[in-house]
């Protein structure tokens, strides 16, 4: 079975073109980061990208436009806005979900709204190595389509090696995740790490590295994504 490749980009004016390049190079899903001034789950790379995007005026309305423009360029590839509670609180929780969907979002990820809180908001849940079995069950039973496995106890950002915690997390969550794909992220950046993670999970999510590579334009991003795609296809 083909292993899924999820690529995260921060919403900026260039992002729709970057997303198209990533999809053409083999990305199966795009996460669109809606920047928040105080991103607690993010490491230095995404913090800096966030700060820059906000300085360029990428507020909620502009990010929703970016989402719609991206949708127009990538066909029916899933698009998932990834953000923080503060943006939904300000915009209105239900209104945010409805407007994102109308602009082409497939689902949502809200990094600081864990499973069990705001149960009315349909979204993809994250689970972590620290999650108890009870919480894994809750997240798996309420997630929207797939589960995001946080491979590290930590924030987003490249690591030198793949976290050893992923294997145990996959083993613990599988029994609760009947038919729900498990995509591993946080700390995955190289083709080798992606292949190793995909040998355990159903797909991988990369964030900080594509955000860095995207600074060099769509061609550079496409080459990076293609290298991940090739590594994942060897696993499948």
């Amino acid at each position, binding site marked *: 079975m083909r292993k899924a490749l999820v690529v995260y980009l921060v919403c900026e004016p260039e992002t729709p073109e970057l997303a198209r390049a990533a999809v053409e190079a083999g990305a199966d899903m795009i996460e669109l980061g809606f920047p*928040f*001034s*105080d991103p*607690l*789950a993010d*490491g230095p790379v995404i*913090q800096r990208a966030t*700060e820059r995007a*906000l300085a360029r005026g990428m*507020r*909620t309305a502009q990010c929703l436009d970016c989402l719609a423009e991206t949708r127009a360029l990538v066909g029916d590839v899933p698009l998932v806005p990834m953000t*923080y*509670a*503060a*943006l*939904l*609180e*300000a*915009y209105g929780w239900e209104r945010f979900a409805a407007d994102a969907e109308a602009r082409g979002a497939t689902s949502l990820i809200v*990094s*600081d*709204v*864990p*499973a*069990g*809180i705001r*149960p009315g908001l349909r979204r993809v*849940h*994250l*689970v*972590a*190595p*620290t*999650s*108890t079995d*009870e*919480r894994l069950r*809750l*997240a798996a039973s309420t997630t929207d389509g797939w589960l995001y496995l*946080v491979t590290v*106890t*930590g*924030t987003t950002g490249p690591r030198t090696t793949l976290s050893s915690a992923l294997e145990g997390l996959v083993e613990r969550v599988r029994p609760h995740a009947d038919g729900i794909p498990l995509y591993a992220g946080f700390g995955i950046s190289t083709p080798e790490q992606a292949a190793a993670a995909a040998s355990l999970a159903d797909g991988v999510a990369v964030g900080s590295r594509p955000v860095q590579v995207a600074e060099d334009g769509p061609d550079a991003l496409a080459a990076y994504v293609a290298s991940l795609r090739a590594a994942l296809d060897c696993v499948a």
Partner: protein
Amino acid sequence: MTAIEETFGPYGGRYVPETLIPALDELSEAWEAAKRDPAFRSELDELGRTYVGRPSPITRADRFAPGRRVYLKREDLNHTGAHKINNALGQVVLANRLGKRRIIAETGAGQHGVATATACARFGLECVVYMGAVDMRRQAPNVERMRLLGATVEPVEYGTRTLKEATSAAIRDWITNVETTHYVIGSCVGPAPYPELVAELQAVIGLEARGQLLEAEGALPDVVVACVGGGSNAIGMFAAFLDDAAVRLVGVEAAGAASLGTGRAAVLHGARSSVLADEDGQIADAHSISAGLDYPGVGPEHAWLRDTGRAEYVPCTDDEALDAFARLTRLEGIIPALESAHALAVVDRIDAEYVAVCLSGRGDKDLAEALAALQSRP
């Protein structure tokens, strides 16, 4: 359990990444167990009496407020010079019960960092304190004190380089090291159970003050006043008077950091509260001469006390606080912290004869900042 929604009316909650939820559950359980355990209470009481110097006295300030009965609750006389030690010791004792040997904290003015470093020295725990680079400059003596106490002070060179970013950096450290580390948050902010936990550890201020005021005057004060940054000395001072409907509760915010006065409902550092934020929910910068009040958020319980009308919150400018700083020093021989000077500054504005003010800390740490500001005045 775990599905904690808002705790104080529509405020509070647990808006944090999944990684922290099990640690917050564990902390809630440990806190509930500790509260029921007489040994925990007596250990804290003993530390308060023999290490902190509790009970702290009340002082009548007749020259500062002639013709009125104005009392100061002297948290400045605590070991380490502020109310922060009440919370830091309580949480470090709690961390010991949890078996966590590494302690992290954020600090603005440095008082909470010093208090936490002190508690860690006393209990032999590793201590890392996050502090904005701007605050490290304006509160340099406290940086030296923390280092002397054996703590590592990590400068935060990001964003505003003040308390907001220091708190974010501490939370990121906690996300990374949660299995070995307890985060001693310094105010009644953050995800549940922190606001309630910190409020209960600070409640000793109001409990003592209420008894002392009754003993001195045979009656409760008309008004109780405290400064509000995150709001921990105020919530501790207010706690014992919440059920005394005739006692007005007044919180004083820095005019440039008036989360309650000019903020809106928003999510910051794990809780929904009243926050300085724009219409998109992006957090705004706060500005205050006092590093301890220089924070765009506030404890969720204060937002609830404001909405219910039980407490009122008023602003105070840097200039008014400096005047009060100078006046209390000259007239009573007490150098207040710039934070506490905000509470003192509104005493003149309050139309009441009998007032209790929480003097939350001493001003030694502020001398350089305050003198420079006073000398630069026209």
